[in-house]
């Protein structure tokens, strides 16, 4: 079924006759491994993001289950302290950077161009490059499991000076630093691409205020990525310089201030959590109107509040640092800005409820996940507001109360929406639909398991249980809560297993659907299934918000507009970008170089090029060759002339 994506509708491709660029190799395979390695098709790239993300979600989930096993009973020694520390560091890093973000990216890639009526993203090869660099980052992060140094173990925010060479001399932190650095490069590159795509590649008539909300949230998220990641890039560069060259950024004995790391990390870190939730909110804003069969309530306000959340998100970072002794004024300021964010978020919740009101709610599986999202995200948001009250947070910070808060917003929020999105767009992606019975079953197991796992953590935290602890004494009053949480985690695990099993089954054997099985509203549902390589045979003209819904109800007007528009396009065919291997080559260069920087021991002495420098330079060379050939190959393409078999 994977090649449902690969089947070009009618590949009457013909090479472009224009001035031949300096091209060494033009891969043209449409199926098979090479076609995947050289693809520039946003749908295939989206699919690869999705597969990678779901794989890493399972990895992160297994890590979570190991955490829960260790904590099931007091004084347990199922894991050693070191293993436990590796586990939660990698659990968080994996879930955030390798599962939820790329899963959002999968939807950005697959859905967003379709929603705006585009044939591809603005820079298809850059898009492929982003994916391959993301994969390189994932590899670097996880190498530690297989080598002596061990996996990173400094916590997902890697506070200095614990992560400096003096306190963490092994390469595990180097791998964490380089891994995150690459993920940053990948995310920034991808987001620049999305920004340009959304702004520039909209179909005629698709004004900004007609953009589907998911696309809007993609845009806001892309801005957040582009503006937040540089902060962590700088922080990581500084840490890496300290570790590699002995500079003094965080070297206390020379006046370094470790708290600077904390600030730089959270300048990135807080926008990051909105990077995780805004796409989810976008998905929910698509699903609810579809299944309520009415437009989103207060579209402009929902869009505006999304942008508002993104903007405010840059002014609240120090709420993760209420206990670092910032002084009264700074604490008060950040406390107030943090509370302010509850307003635009509340607006979204209210508008979602407004969307339901007076609707015809068809309770399909995606709708259930979406409603589950609203409930759970609301709870998570409320514990967020409790954190925002700084003095109260002094008790909650770094306790299980925080763990409860962020799992409610991350799982009950982001993950539920993403799981809903998979169900929702599955028919569009693969032409099949998950059986309702199984879908609902997996929803209920996940919903119950999730609450059983994480609700008790509120109480654990308020009862004084600190986070990131590999053991606890039986006399602290934490036994029951932890045991329940562990049981819950396994229920959740069963739910996730059911979800995945059903998905995989459906992928191969599920009920076939035609296009637009949900009677949906946005443009992507106007496409045939599977979506042809070029997406739209004729670029659609958009007449209203909820373009496809309008089209379905105003067929004549739309047909007229299309007829006026189509011949021009048909005459010169559809321009398709050539496939290219160079994004992959450049990414491999980056991977090699990063291995050189982070995994290999420092060179013995000055004067000779030891293995570290050699590998690093080799990687750099491969990268440069890749980039040059990429540039010389040019952004040319070929034309296809699909047959006129469907409108």
């Amino acid at each position, binding site marked *: 079924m994977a090649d449902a994506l690969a089947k070009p509708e009618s590949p009457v491709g013909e090479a472009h006759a224009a001035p031949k660029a300096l091209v060494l190799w033009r891969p043209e395979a449409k199926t098979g491994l090479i076609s995947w390695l050289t693809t520039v098709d946003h749908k295939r790239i989206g699919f690869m993001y999705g597969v990678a993300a779901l794989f890493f979600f399972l990895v992160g989930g297994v890590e979570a289950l190991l955490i829960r096993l260790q904590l099931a009973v007091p004084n347990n020694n199922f894991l050693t302290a070191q293993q436990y520390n590796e586990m939660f560091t990698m659990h968080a890093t994996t879930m955030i950077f390798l599962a939820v973000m790329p899963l959002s990216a999968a939807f950005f890639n697959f859905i967003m161009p379709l929603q705006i009526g585009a044939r591809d993203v603005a820079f298809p090869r850059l898009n492929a490059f982003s994916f391959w660099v993301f994969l390189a980052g994932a590899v670097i992060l996880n190498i530690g499991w297989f080598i002596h140094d061990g996996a990173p173990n400094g916590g997902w925010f890697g506070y200095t*000076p614990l992560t400096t060479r003096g306190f963490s001399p092994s390469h595990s932190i180097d791998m964490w630093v380089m891994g995150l650095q690459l993920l940053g490069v990948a995310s920034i590159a991808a987001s620049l691409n999305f920004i340009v795509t959304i702004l520039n590649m909209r179909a005629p008539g698709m004004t900004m205020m007609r953009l589907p909300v998911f696309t809007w949230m993609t845009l806001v998220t892309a801005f957040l990525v582009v503006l937040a990641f540089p902060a962590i890039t700088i922080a990581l560069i500084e840490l890496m310089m300290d570790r590699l060259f002995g500079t003094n950024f965080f070297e206390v004995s020379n006046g370094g201030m470790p708290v600077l790391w904390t600030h730089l990390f959270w300048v990135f870190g807080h926008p990051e959590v909105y990077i995780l939730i805004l796409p989810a909110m976008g998905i929910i804003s698509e699903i609810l109107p579809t299944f309520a069969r009415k437009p989103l309530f207060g579209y402009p306000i929902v869009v505006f509040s999304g942008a508002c959340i993104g903007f405010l998100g840059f002014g609240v970072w120090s709420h993760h640092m209420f206990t670092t002794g910032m002084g009264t004024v700074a604490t008060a300021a950040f406390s107030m800005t943090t509370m302010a964010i509850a307003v635009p978020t509340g607006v979204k919740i209210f508008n979602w409820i*407004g969307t339901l009101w007076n609707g015809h*709610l068809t309770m399909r599986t995606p709708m259930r996940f979406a409603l589950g999202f609203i409930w759970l995200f609301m709870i998570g948001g409320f514990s967020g507001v409790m954190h925002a009250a700084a003095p*109260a947070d002094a008790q909650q910070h770094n306790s299980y109360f925080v763990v409860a808060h962020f799992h409610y917003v991350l799982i009950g929020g982001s993950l539920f929406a993403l799981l809903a999105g998979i169900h929702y767009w599955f028919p569009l992606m693969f032409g099949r639909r998950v059986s309702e019975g199984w879908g609902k079953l997996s929803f209920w197991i996940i919903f119950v398991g999730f609450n059983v796992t994480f609700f008790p953590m509120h109480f654990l935290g308020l009862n004084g249980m600190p986070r990131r602890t590999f053991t606890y004494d039986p006399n602290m009053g934490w036994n029951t809560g932890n045991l329940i949480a562990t049981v819950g985690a396994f229920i959740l695990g069963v739910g996730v297993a059911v979800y995945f099993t059903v998905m995989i089954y459906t992928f191969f054997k599920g009920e076939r659907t035609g296009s637009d099985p949900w009677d949906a509203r946005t443009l992507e549902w106007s496409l045939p299934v599977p979506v042809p390589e070029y997406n739209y045979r004729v670029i659609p003209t958009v007449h209203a918000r909820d373009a496809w819904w309008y089209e379905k109800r105003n067929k004549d007007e739309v047909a007229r507009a299309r007829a006026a528009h189509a011949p021009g396009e048909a005459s010169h065919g559809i321009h398709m970008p050539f496939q290219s291997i160079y994004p992959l080559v450049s990414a491999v260069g980056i991977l090699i170089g990063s291995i050189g920087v982070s995994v290999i021991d420092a060179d013995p002495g000055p004067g000779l090029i030891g293995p570290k420098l050699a590998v690093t330079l080799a990687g750099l060379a491969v990268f440069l060759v890749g980039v040059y050939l990429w540039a010389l190959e040019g952004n040319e393409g070929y034309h296809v002339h699909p047959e006129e078999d469907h409108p």
Partner: protein
Amino acid sequence: MALFPLTSTFARRALAGFAALAVPLLSGCSWQSWLGLDGKQSTFQVEGPVARDQLQLFYITCYVTFAIFIIVGAILAYATLKFWAHSDADEHAEPPPQGHGNPLVEVGLIGAAVLALVVIAIPTLKGIWYTYDVPAESKADAYEVVATGYQWWFKFEYPKEQIAGAGPLTCANELVIPAGRPVRIALRSMDVMHSFWVPKLAGKVDMIPNRANFIWLKAEHPGYFWGQCAEFCGESHAVMRFRVVALGPQEFRDWVEHQAQPARSVAAAQGALSFAHVAAAPIRAYAPNEAGVSAAYETAPLDSWRARQLPNESEDPALIARGRALFSEKTCISCHTVRGVPGAMGITGPDLTHVGARSSIAGGLLENNSEQLRRWIHNPGAVKPGNKMWVTGYLVNNIHLASDEELALVAFLQSLK
């Protein structure tokens, strides 16, 4: 009932819960214990003004968000049920009117949300200023202490109690403070970030290298409080714990006076060094992470602590003297200070001058008794992984203790009251 015999905690909690629900006015304690929120580090059963202020604020945030949750949740539930298209016919009916929103409703709801936030914001702001530093009117009365975090233990210094030739009075892992007086604690770190957290007295403040943080708190009554490092600080962060002991004015003064004395040396005859060889039983095997506290200490920790201030009943001067010698021989002195023992001026480890008078050792992880102390010095790395006592940096110290040597050291350390 057969399923839950009355003796099980679950059944008792369940019963207590029902009882609590039956009585509309819950008395402060019952619902907390019903939910199991009465732990040693509970933030609900507070014993000081700072923690109380924080708890009050927490309640306010709870009330406000609960209220919003009930209202919004009720509307959401109602909308879901009311507009649920139950039948196939419903689903294929004409779509509902395509309404786009209602600005008046929107603005009203935004206003309501802002209002709710103001209710939270005002006490928050008050709380920020109140919990930040000792209130001006009681500044003069405040007692000052310096707490320093190390991987993975705490050092406490009393700058007001200077000891001639030895600087301020120093102890470790158990902070003794005067009850009923505000205490302002300067927070320092000598390696990585740590955090100082005694939930019943006050929320946490971090100990950050190169940063002059402080916290203030007040224990309203004499008491014994559990504390914990609350910032991830490496391998043994989980077991970096400590205690705070609050004493009445007189008792506190006595304690300070006693602490200022050098280590007690048990009267041992000069010749006692030729003591008879102790037939030392090998130490029993401990599972990793095995708990090291007794029930008696659990139930009445402050009494336990007081009891430890008194000399042991049966002390073997010869054994103690042997331990005292071993303390130097085995290079313990290079890291530990024991005022009164020549050469014992190490500062990389906790001050042990009166270690015998502490109720816990190893950062509050183990109860202080001969058995647990022996477990500790037998192999500290097994108690606290990555521990810096047997391992300095990443070099293993080659300290080998025979069973009898362990016993002698234990006897010596236990005698340091």
